[in-house]
């Protein structure tokens, strides 16, 4: 494993992050904000260092599987580090807070240390949402889509970054697949921007909130999040696009290619949709009984918004669900773990894994009835082989274990139980707002420094789906 190989690709990604910060500097300049210079400085540092690292190292011929894991993890960490510079340079956050905000953005978590985003300059806010948008489809996928030389090595990087047990290939070449995914992503974002404009949002608000929606991120430029826009139309548009962001992008691609039925026939999609609808039914019923809303429509809108926002791991808010009945909060807490579909931008464990594990549970029951039976588990008509099933179950175990360790560490730092559990789940599932002290009306600025580091790590673990990061800690990884 050569550090030079890693540097070559990481350099490229850092330079790309720099370019994106440069674009944000232009936005800051247009609004003649005080943040144009800090953004420009951060962009210059990233571009110069990134290109230098890239030029001074040889182009890798081929990537080993170990190099791929290392590159993906380090690339994400580097992107977060360089992406943190603008917050620090602009003087709105300490270095640690800046890093927390940056990694929260790239991992599409949306957990913020800013109590009042509206007080921040517009260029910084734009960068916050742009970093989410880049992280949503994946910075590696972007690089793979643009760079031809990665070839087979690109597939390994792709697999290490893209969520879901087995990424689908839409076209024979990985570069084509990556570019299709990005085009669908850009297209959906543009559609959302247009609908927001129709709903009466300013272009700036429309773009930043679309950048927060499609990657299931959740950063808003407003302190009251989407709740700041009282128009039901805008809130419903957000619900729809959050929902779409949680759908497998391969399905979007097929639907756009004229096979809309392939969505309806998809078993995971049915589970994902049914799960959200059932959660909505429970939350709505509980909220109506508790009388938290003035009208049925308001109750429906707020319940649907929170269920979809948490269920897809976006983390936007129109209501403070911490004040809702306990039943509603438990449903939302459960939804945190499920997340979006495999191949979507959503976080969490993914509905594919949840569905496969449930089916395996039923199979185990049947095996108890017929001890000598040979039964295979099918998901969507396809057989899930034993190796894949074990991978899924082990993933879920590691996911829950990471959540528990995270919550444990937070409580050890003096955070109360419900807040610690909510924060740990919200971080590893890349949601943002948690429960109690980190609910949608609160923020993470008060967290102890160690707690912020723990949560940052959980976010990265969740975004890169555990294995990619954890293999680096296996002793054999470093053995020659």
């Amino acid at each position: 494993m050569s550090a030079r190989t890693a540097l070559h690709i990481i350099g490229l990604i850092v330079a790309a992050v720099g370019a994106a910060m440069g674009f944000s500097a232009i936005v800051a300049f247009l609004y003649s904000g005080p943040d144009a210079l800090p953004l420009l400085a951060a962009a210059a540092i990233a571009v110069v260092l990134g290109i230098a690292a890239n030029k001074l190292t040889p182009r890798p011929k081929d990537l080993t599987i170990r190099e791929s894991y290392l590159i993906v993890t380090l690339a994400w960490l580097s992107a977060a580090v360089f992406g943190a510079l603008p917050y620090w340079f602009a003087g709105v956050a300490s270095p640690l807070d800046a890093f927390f905000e940056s990694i929260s953005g790239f991992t599409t978590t949306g957990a913020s240390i800013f109590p009042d985003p509206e007080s921040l300059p517009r260029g910084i806010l734009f960068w916050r949402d742009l970093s989410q948008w880049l992280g949503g489809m994946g910075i590696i996928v972007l690089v793979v889509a643009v760079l031809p030389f990665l070839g087979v090595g690109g597939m390994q990087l792709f697999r290490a970054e893209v969520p879901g047990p087995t990424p689908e290939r839409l076209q024979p070449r990985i570069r084509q697949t990556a570019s299709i995914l990005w085009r669908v992503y850009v297209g959906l974002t543009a559609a959302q921007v247009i609908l927001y404009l129709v709903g009466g949002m300013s272009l700036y608000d429309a773009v930043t909130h679309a950048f927060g929606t499609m990657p299931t991120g959740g950063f808003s430029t407003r302190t009251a999040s989407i709740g700041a826009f009282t128009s039901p139309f805008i809130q419903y548009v957000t619900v729809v696009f959050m929902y779409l962001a949680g759908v497998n992008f391969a399905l979007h691609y097929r639907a756009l290619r004229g096979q809309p039925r392939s969505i309806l026939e998809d078993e995971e999609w049915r589970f994902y949709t049914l799960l959200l609808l059932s959660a909505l039914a429970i939350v709505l019923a509980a909220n109506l009984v508790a009388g938290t809303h003035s009208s049925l429509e308001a109750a429906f809108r707020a319940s649907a918004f929170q269920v979809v926002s948490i269920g897809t791991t976006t983390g936007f808010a129109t209501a403070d669900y911490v004040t809702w009945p306990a039943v509603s909060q438990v449903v939302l807490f459960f939804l945190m773990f499920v997340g979006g579909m495999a191949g979507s931008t959503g976080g969490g464990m993914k509905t594919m894994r949840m569905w496969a594990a449930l089916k395996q549970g039923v199979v185990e029951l049947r095996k108890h009835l017929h001890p000598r039976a040979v039964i295979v588990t099918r998901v969507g008509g396809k057989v899930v082989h034993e190796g894949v099933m074990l991978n899924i179950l082990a993933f879920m175990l590691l996911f829950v274990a990471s959540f528990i360790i995270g919550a444990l560490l937070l409580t050890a730092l003096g955070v109360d139980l419900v807040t610690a559990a909510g924060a740990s789940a919200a971080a590893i599932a890349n949601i943002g707002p948690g429960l109690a002290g980190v609910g949608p009306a609160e923020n993470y600025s008060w967290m102890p420094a160690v707690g912020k580091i723990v949560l940052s790590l959980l976010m990265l673990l969740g975004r890169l789906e555990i294995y990619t990061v954890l293999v680096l800690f296996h002793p054999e990884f470093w053995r020659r």
Partner: protein
Amino acid sequence: MRILIVGAGAVGFSLAEHLSEEGHDIVLVDQDPERAARAQDQLDIMTVTGNGASISVLEKAGIEDVDLLAAVTSVDEVNLIACMSAAQYDIPIKIARISNPDYFSEAGRLKSAQQGVDLMINPELECAREAFQLLQSEASTELAFFAGGRVQLMGLRVQPDAPIVGQSLQEVATRVEDRRFLTAAVLRNGETIIPRGDYRFQAGDQIYIIGESTQMPLVLKLAGYPEFKLRRVMIGGGGRTAVYLAKILEEHNVDYTIIESDRARCVKLAELLKKALILHGNATDMELLEMEGVEEIEGFVVLTGSDDTNMLASLLAKSHGVPKVVALINRIDYIPLVSRVGIDAVVSPRISAVNSILRHARGGIVVGVAALRGIDAEVIEFNVQPASDIAGKTLAEIDFPDHSLVGAITRGDEVIVPSGQVKLANGDKVTVLALPDAVKAVEKLFQ
């Protein structure tokens, strides 16, 4: 007729034996010198050793003068290529045995016309269909269909408490109104007879009925069988025939369990069959059968590759009171034993394959053939052709040989029960049962 058979396995060997006895000249090709030599020793045929799909081997076997090519190895691809290689010669009928379920999936099936093949036979599928038909009633030991399914031949055993026991054929005939079936043959004490009016039914007689398919429930009632509803089936052995049978059972919403001894095959089956319960174990494992509720099932079908296992498993199932037990038996010398030990019915891909090919070897006048297993007789379906002497004659005027019987006449959609006064017309399909010594003479009549 000169016939070239590719593959001297179970199917090829039986086919060569049958066709050679019928007076055809047979050339048999097989890669395995031992199998080729064995066939040459036992049958009056010529054998060629080599790959039957290669043109040079086919030429060595005299492909230029062949009237019919039957490629019946157990490998589908070899059979197809043999027919494709033979396409450049002018052979009237090319038959390929294709039995891999992959080529007959719901999504799409291989069609014979595309491959330069005149007929594809699938003995395993035919066998599965036959097994399913046999499962439909508790009584039937043998089934064959003619005239597109309108006419049926059924073999069954007369129960001790049947209403017809002790009655003569004539008495039964007058008692049943609108009768459209007749008793074509009887096996009693190991002897096959074609019954006349004074024949009296006895309990335990193995009788063969030919008639309109819709009348078979009535026949079952007369022979003393209660109504039968198939709900659950167990299948022993998970080969190709089992897969086909499973798919048919799924279509008819019958629950089924497959017991297969090879673990890897179990996994393959579980992947292939969505509604199946696949058990890893032996079909002869009593404990497993009991645990899975063998006492509650209506049908048990054993289709493993071993006749011995199939016999044993059938006996075990029968001893557990399973109403209908069907076994796959390939060795013809085992078949007379079957009914004696209590197994209800037998299927055999080998005999299915031979039946389908025989039909084509006999040429235009023969529409369908079924070689019966329980008795030494054949049921042949003829087409009455305008040029033949018999068109326009009544049955009484035609000189049918002693050991033969006209079972049914199909005219358009109508099934006519034969009597002396019925006049044969051009285009009629006539189903005739004949003992071996009468087959030739009957064929001559229709020529």
